[in-house]
């Protein structure tokens, strides 16, 4: 095809449809990922709610939720430190943004360790995927699957955050990438705020 044809083709091409959401492709992809993750978490929680409601003798094993309270405080605080990192990244204060991202990652690590400690406590009481000392076998499977899915997001997210922070400091990533990660981190923090009442607070021992 000659150059003249290409030029004519370009001029005669119909005008492109206006971009409906006017946002960078990576950000749109992140929002789509969040939406799909909402569906997955919602399916887990609905399944948990279904099992719990349909089981008259559902166990209420939690005597104290102090550890869960501390974990929630850590998660909420890490959401704030992530926003501090984003604020610093937007004014291209790299050192401060990196520091705040490292604080957020430290929160993620601490949360993960406390969560594993919580799981170990449950395992010590004899709760496994297939049985538990209180009766309905579905309790263990439901508990581990819903909290495990959240734990997987937070622990893998923490590793991803460290990668983002290092790449941001090295100049490979910019404030837009920090913003993308902020959306993800805030989302997993929000999911935890749903898990706490559903899994822990509604099953306090009475």
């Amino acid at each position, binding site marked *: 095809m000659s150059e003249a044809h290409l030029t004519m083709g370009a001029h005669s091409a119909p005008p492109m449809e206006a971009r409906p959401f006017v946002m960078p492709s990576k950000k749109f992809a992140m929002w789509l990922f969040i*939406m799909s993750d909402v569906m997955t978490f919602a399916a887990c929680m609905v399944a948990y709610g279904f099992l719990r409601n349909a089981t008259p003798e559902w166990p209420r094993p939690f005597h104290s939720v102090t550890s869960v309270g501390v974990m929630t405080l850590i998660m909420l605080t890490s959401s*704030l430190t992530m926003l501090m990192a984003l604020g610093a990244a937007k004014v291209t204060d790299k050192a401060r943004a990196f520091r705040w991202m490292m604080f957020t990652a430290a929160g993620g690590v601490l949360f993960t360790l406390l969560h594993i400690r919580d799981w170990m406590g449950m395992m010590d009481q004899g709760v496994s995927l297939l049985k538990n000392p209180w009766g309905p076998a579905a309790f263990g499977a439901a508990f581990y699957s819903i909290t495990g899915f959240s734990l997987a997001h937070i622990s893998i997210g923490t590793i991803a955050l460290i990668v983002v922070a290092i790449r941001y400091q090295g100049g490979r990533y910019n404030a837009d990438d920090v913003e993308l990660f902020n959306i993800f981190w805030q989302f997993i923090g929000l999911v935890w705020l749903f898990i706490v009442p559903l899994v822990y607070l509604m099953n306090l021992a009475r």
Partner: protein
Amino acid sequence: MTTAGASGMKKYVAVYVALLVITALQFVIGYQNAEGSQLVVRFATFAVIETILVLLFFMNLGTETPGFIKFFVYFMAFVLATINYGWTDSFRLLLFRLTGYMPS
């Protein structure tokens, strides 16, 4: 930090404190001997408030275009409403278990 940046941080801290207070209230409610359905309603109300705060201020959804906000809200509302439709069937199962009735 610029004035705009500082006011943005103040907003984030205010939302953070609001989230802490709401979460603390949830823990207080959890320790009360409320009936199951009352607990669900209270926790769901608080969860909705927390979701709105996080989406608007922490995830900055409010700064996106109205078209995207509508797309996100309508899509999520539809998905969450339809996914919760199946949950209601657990009452049927509960009735079977409580009464010992087993359909053939």
